[in-house]
């Protein structure tokens, strides 16, 4: 078990976004969170790397101390949590004033203190993998949305994290660019990268996920293997959600 989250609660003012969330991620597995907007799935994801600090609950990474959010969390603890994972954002959030290769080596070089030559070599290999080798000296604005997001993925991979977090990686892309990004993510899944993915792409979830969690109103309504969730959901809310997405015009 790489990551265990129990009883995660989070409110923003009066809005109780997460009521009590349990989540387990095994090494080499892909956990996909689906659900309507406002269900809290992005907040769960952002709690896993400290971008959001829950009001209650615990998170434990394999080989690390358990973080109990009922007590105040120090910066060092947040950073320790953060350093285990890398995130890919919906809005890619590439650094516009740096070239593609500079974006990718920024973390390894400046934070992880990897020697420059090594960082560049590893970054080049990763860019080559996703088919962006010839874009290494381009600036983000020169790339298409799908290319930018692939750079975003490479930037996360370059950190050699134990866990990859994807926050709706394709939601901001034009439909025809979604495929190239999902392809990369699927390949990473096949390589047994440990991932938590928040997405609306249900076909991807079906193909790549080891476990699917359907969230609604701040709770996990249903969880299980993708086959079970998509073909035989046990909860009515799950059924209605899947219906709305898969057959929107009925």
């Amino acid at each position, binding site marked *: 078990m790489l990551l265990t989250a129990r009883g995660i609660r989070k409110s923003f003012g009066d809005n109780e976004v997460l009521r009590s969330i349990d989540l387990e991620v095994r090494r080499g597995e892909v956990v996909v969170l689906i659900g309507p907007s406002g269900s809290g799935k992005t907040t769960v994801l952002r709690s896993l790397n400290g971008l959001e600090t829950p009001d209650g609950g615990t998170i434990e990474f394999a080989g690390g101390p358990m973080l109990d959010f009922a007590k105040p969390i120090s910066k060092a603890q947040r950073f320790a949590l953060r350093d285990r994972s890398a995130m890919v954002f919906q809005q890619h959030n590439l*650094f*516009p004033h740096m070239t593609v290769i500079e974006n990718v080596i920024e973390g390894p070089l400046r934070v*992880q203190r990897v020697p420059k030559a090594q960082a560049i070599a590893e970054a080049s290999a990763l860019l080559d993998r996703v088919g962006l080798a010839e874009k290494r000296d381009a600036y983000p604005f020169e790339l298409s949305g799908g290319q930018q997001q692939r750079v975003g993925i490479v930037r996360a991979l370059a950190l050699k994290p134990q866990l990859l977090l994807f926050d709706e990686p394709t939601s901001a892309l034009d439909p025809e660019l979604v495929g190239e990004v999902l392809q990369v993510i699927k390949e990473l899944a096949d390589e047994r990268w440990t991932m938590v993915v928040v997405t609306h792409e249900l076909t991807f979830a079906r193909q790549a996920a080891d476990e699917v969690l359907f969230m609604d109103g701040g709770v996990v309504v249903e969880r299980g293997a993708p086959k079970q969730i998509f073909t035989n959901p046990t909860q009515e809310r799950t059924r209605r959600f899947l219906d709305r997405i898969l057959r929107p015009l009925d």
Partner: protein
Amino acid sequence: MSGWQLFLDSFWPLVVGAVTGTIPLALASFAIGLVLALGVALLRLSKNRVLSGIARFYISVIRGTPLLVQLFVIFYGLPSLGLVIDPWPSAIIAFSLNVGGYGAEVIRAAILSVPKGQWEAGYTIGMSNGMTLRRLILPQAARVSVPPLSNTFISLVKDTSLASLILVTELFRVAQEIAAFSQEFMLLYLEAALIYWIICIVLAGGQGMLEKRLDRYVAT
């Protein structure tokens, strides 16, 4: 002496006044003021209420009082407290503090204009707040801040004329002296205005070049 002759004869002394007074005064004050502005901007952005309060107070005083008054407080006022500062240092101190106040708001706005996602991306690749600010935020904020800070600098060049009132020899004071001597007030003051204008046109050109350079990573 004909007007044209006076114009030509005065030109060199005025330029000397600009080059040995106006420009060094503006450059030194702006350089110091910018560093101060960055510090004040960061204090203003701090979550610590005492620190941001100090910054807000400072900005309020600078923006709320005339530059001339600030200058006189330092040069004419401080001696009564036992602190006598020479004209040049007084001018630089006053102008620097002034740039610090106005510049702080420009820098704060520029920092706030950088999307929150950049902070989050910096966080997720393992950076501290300080490193994120240095490596990611400030470079992007710098581009946004060039037009308003150029404004501040160009204004400062003209504000240096106030230093003439505390006995600093710069362009305007030279013009005053020659005008008083020759009684050709219109001619000399227009000539001074012309030189200020030329300096500012050059500075505006420099601003354009800087903006173009910083635009290289922005979609057209």
